[in-house]
């Protein structure tokens, strides 16, 4: 299935006393195939071997993937539950002592019970993540609503994929991150990539990206920085951070003006064209250029290429989504595909580069404050009744919708939320406006953290539960294509660590909810219940059995039953998921970033990733190779700007915004706009750039505006390079 020109039959190398376990990378949404090398005498993971037979990535891996295996038997692993009795030590690594699982569970059950009887069910909260299997994500949602009975559950996808989700739901009525399989990417004629540092964040897409150009196709990249993918673009739209909506409207303006629209498609399959046409009238190349700072000729050239391309794919990522108008940006770029009809057929469509390994699956099945499995809305009575039945609860007992990730911290600060169960996330590094968030964590009466390393967030916990790495459990994840794939277990959990799903089952039993959980004895048991719970929803996984996943190299959802092979291409029948079957072309008025530069804060600060680190860096900063390559953050500054501040390469400076400040080494590069500075966000404590970022939330997705705020540089007396 989907074997293309990059696929070659290659035998793997197996060394003596070794076996290979087929699986996928633990990190980003590419979910590159890999074989873990396991020593058959010690039964320990000792290395990695390419997985040439995985059709999406054919053996390729970025350096994170190559070294991912080093997480499992790392010295920093937490091997037993940890309890800290002295709450005054919160926010530090100090004061933890080892405890038995029984003692940890008892303490949690006692403290959770006390809080709920004193302050009500909703005084507890769950903050989760999507770098874990669908089975774990599913059970976490059930655990919050059934075992804890709280409305307050949300997850780190609010800082990652929520705007893409919101935009796709509005434009298409369904949120599948890519309308086509990745094996189409190199065969299209034009890639329009906006706000994606593809080469660093999804490196194994790059051989397909370059192949488009090798075939004579075009590459257009919109990014304030000349990233490694922008370096070779036919057109680099070097826009000001936070002005994507204007750029997208400007391109749609030109597509209409140049006659590159598909009127038959628009009339038959979409709504909203006339309003949109009206709205983008103002976005002439000159007006668009004024807002975005991109030269008129570049905007015209990009629109011409996209318009003329027989097939084209619009792709985007956090650059456009992590804005307080992220949802609008997604719908606005999606408009390009809808007005030209370049969607609903092979080699043409729209895709977002999913950030986390299971950013797609993890958002569909009930970790989001208002969602239940199968992408059902919690306030949809019928859907909630169905899920209640699967869970064996009275629909009346299904909690209401809660609030988004960042808003949970606000509720912690004001003491509405008093207890937290945090897992698979490190918000003390990854949330915006960290001075506030760290205070909120400190303010909790009781906090439990599940992690396999002592993360910066775990430093605020009263109890730490040692979870396992991805290689010590099995289950499914849904990659950036919407393909459900299988993660296999390569080693037994080290120490006394356990998979999160197992902890939740055991904790639920302590909390007196065993009858809803005790039947779940293996990851497979969870998978079976989860498939059933998703059945009939938009994200229907019912037909995606583990056997089928193995046989077919993954299953694209929706996959409704045993006969259904899944859906690699969406909308081939030109049926969208809104009730009338039409897609929505959206008229979206431009809004500037929440915080525009001013005299005191004249620079635009934007943040992002480097190829060596993943998210908050809790995992990758511990891997020696990766840490050697990028041991500390830095601030990228254009030489013209550096001259203005009289600062040099490698000099230590103070960077500050209205919310916070931090010291960074200057990295001079011409590959950034003069008005913009960039800092990678993978670092903790005093080095976190999120001390400076703004928590301006998108009204629909509640996504914070990580990608644009106003900042200032101060030269330090002591900062001189020697």
């Amino acid at each position, binding site marked *: 299935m989907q074997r293309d020109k990059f696929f070659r039959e290659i035998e793997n190398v197996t060394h003596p006393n070794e076996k290979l376990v087929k699986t996928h990378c633990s990190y980003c949404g590419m979910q590159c195939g890999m074989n873990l090398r396991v020593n058959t005498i010690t039964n320990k993971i000792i290395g990695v071997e*390419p997985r040439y037979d995985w059709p999406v990535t054919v*053996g390729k891996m970025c350096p994170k993937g190559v070294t991912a295996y080093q997480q499992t038997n790392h010295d920093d692993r937490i091997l037993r539950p940890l309890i800290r009795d002295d709450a005054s030590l919160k926010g530090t690594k100090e004061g933890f002592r080892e405890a038995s699982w029984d003692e940890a569970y008892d303490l949690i059950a006692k403290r959770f019970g006390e809080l709920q009887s004193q302050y009500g069910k909703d005084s507890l909260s769950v903050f989760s993540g999507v770098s874990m299997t669908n089975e774990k994500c599913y059970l976490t949602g059930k655990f919050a609503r059934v075992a804890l009975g709280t409305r307050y559950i949300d997850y780190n996808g609010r800082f990652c994929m929520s705007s893409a989700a919101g935009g796709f739901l509005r434009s298409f009525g369904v949120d599948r991150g890519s309308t086509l399989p990745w094996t189409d990417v190199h065969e299209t004629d034009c890639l329009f990539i906006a706000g994606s540092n593809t080469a660093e964040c999804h490196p194994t897409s790059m051989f397909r990206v370059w192949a488009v150009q090798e075939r004579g196709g075009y590459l257009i990249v919109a990014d304030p920085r000349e990233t490694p993918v922008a370096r070779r673009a036919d057109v680099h739209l070097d826009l000001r951070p936070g002005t994507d909506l204007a750029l997208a409207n400007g391109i749609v303006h030109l597509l209409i003006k140049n006659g590159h629209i598909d009127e038959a498609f628009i009339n038959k399959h979409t709504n909203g064209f006339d309003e949109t046409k009206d709205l983008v009238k103002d976005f002439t190349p000159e007006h668009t250029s004024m807002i975005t700072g991109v030269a008129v000729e570049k905007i015209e050239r990009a629109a011409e290429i996209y318009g003329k391309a027989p097939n084209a794919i619009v792709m985007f990522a956090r650059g456009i989504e992590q804005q307080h108008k992220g949802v609008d940006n997604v719908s606005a770029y999606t408009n390009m595909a809808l007005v030209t009809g370049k969607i609903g057929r092979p080699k043409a469509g729209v895709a977002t580069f999913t950030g986390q390994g299971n950013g797609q699956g993890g958002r569909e099945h009930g970790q989001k404050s208002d969602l239940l499995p199968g992408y059902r809305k919690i306030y949809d009575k019928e859907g909630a009744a169905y899920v209640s039945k699967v869970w064996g609860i009275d629909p009346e007992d299904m909690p209401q919708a809660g609030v988004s990730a960042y808003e949970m911290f606000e509720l912690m600060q004001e003491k509405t939320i008093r207890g937290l169960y945090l897992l698979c996330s490190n918000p003390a590094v990854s949330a915006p406006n960290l001075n506030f968030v760290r205070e909120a964590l400190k303010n909790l009466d009781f906090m439990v953290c599940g992690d396999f390393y002592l993360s910066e967030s775990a430093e605020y916990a009263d109890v730490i539960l040692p979870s396992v790495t991805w290689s010590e459990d099995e289950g499914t994840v849904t990659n950036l294509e919407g393909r459900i794939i299988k993660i296999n277990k390569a080693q037994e959990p080290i120490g006394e660590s356990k998979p999160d799903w197992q902890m939740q089952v055991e904790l639920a039993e302590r909390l007196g909810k065993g009858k809803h959980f005790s039947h779940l004895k293996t990851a497979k048991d969870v998978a079976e219940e989860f498939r059933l719970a998703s059945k009939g929803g938009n994200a229907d996984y019912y037909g995606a059995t583990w056997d089928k996943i193995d046989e077919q190299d993954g299953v694209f959802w929706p996959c409704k039953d045993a006969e259904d092979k899944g859906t690699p291409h969406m909308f081939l029948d030109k049926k969208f998921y809104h009730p009338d079957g039409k897609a929505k072309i959206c008229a979206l008025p431009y809004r500037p970033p929440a915080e525009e530069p001013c005299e005191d804060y004249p620079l635009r600060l934007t943040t992002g990733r480097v190829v060596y680190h993943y998210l908050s860096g809790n995992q990758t900063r511990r891997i020696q190779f990766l840490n050697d390559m990028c041991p500390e953050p830095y601030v990228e500054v254009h030489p013209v700007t550096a001259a203005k501040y009289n600062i040099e390469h490698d000099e230590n400076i103070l960077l500050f915004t209205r919310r916070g400040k931090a010291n960074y080494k200057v990295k001079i*590069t*011409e590959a950034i706009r003069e008005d913009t500075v960039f800092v990678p966000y993978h670092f903790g404590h005093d080095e976190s750039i999120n001390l400076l970022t703004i928590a301006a939330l998108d009204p629909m997705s509640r996504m914070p505006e990580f990608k644009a705020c106003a900042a200032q540089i101060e030269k330090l007396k002591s900062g001189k390079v020697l």
Partner: protein
Amino acid sequence: MTMTINDSTYTTETAKTKRRLYMELENCIGCRSCLAACTQCGGHEQRNRNYVYDVNPLVNRQTMPLMCLHCVDPACARSCPAQAIQIHETGAVLSALVEKCIGCQNCTIACPYGIPKFDEEENLMYKCDLCIDRTKDDIPPMCASVCPSNTLQWLTEEEIAEKQNRHDLDNEKWVTSMPYLEGETNVKVNLPGILQGTVKLF
């Protein structure tokens, strides 16, 4: 003087399908996955043997790998007084034999590309052996297996000929494909400029 060693597993059958390491420098995205992967090969003992450079660090993000080119008449081996550097019958110029290497570092100086690395503690030279335990069976070396941008590829002679054809601009001044660099090499390199001759689709 150089020596060639025979490896019984290297049959005439594999010789026919023989592939070579081929590089398209312009594709490089600087991820250094090739470095990370180099440690994964049997006998590499967690030491990587190649390099990746920022071509113009204060200006742009162009990077390029610097790999052993497995010269047909390798300067490193020629310079070795102890005949510690052997040439495999596939053409791979191997890492120094532990029992022969005297740690004189002649090779690191002789190599025009500065490839051989030196382990001070072990007093031993080590270099890219083209992942000989893989490539002897025509399995791609680790670096070319993982390289996400196809900068490093493992291609047949025909595929390389095709590349050379495509990228030979015939413009006197500059051709992108070079038959060899310093001397004839087993690894083929395509210098920046690969898209110059590309005919656009529309």
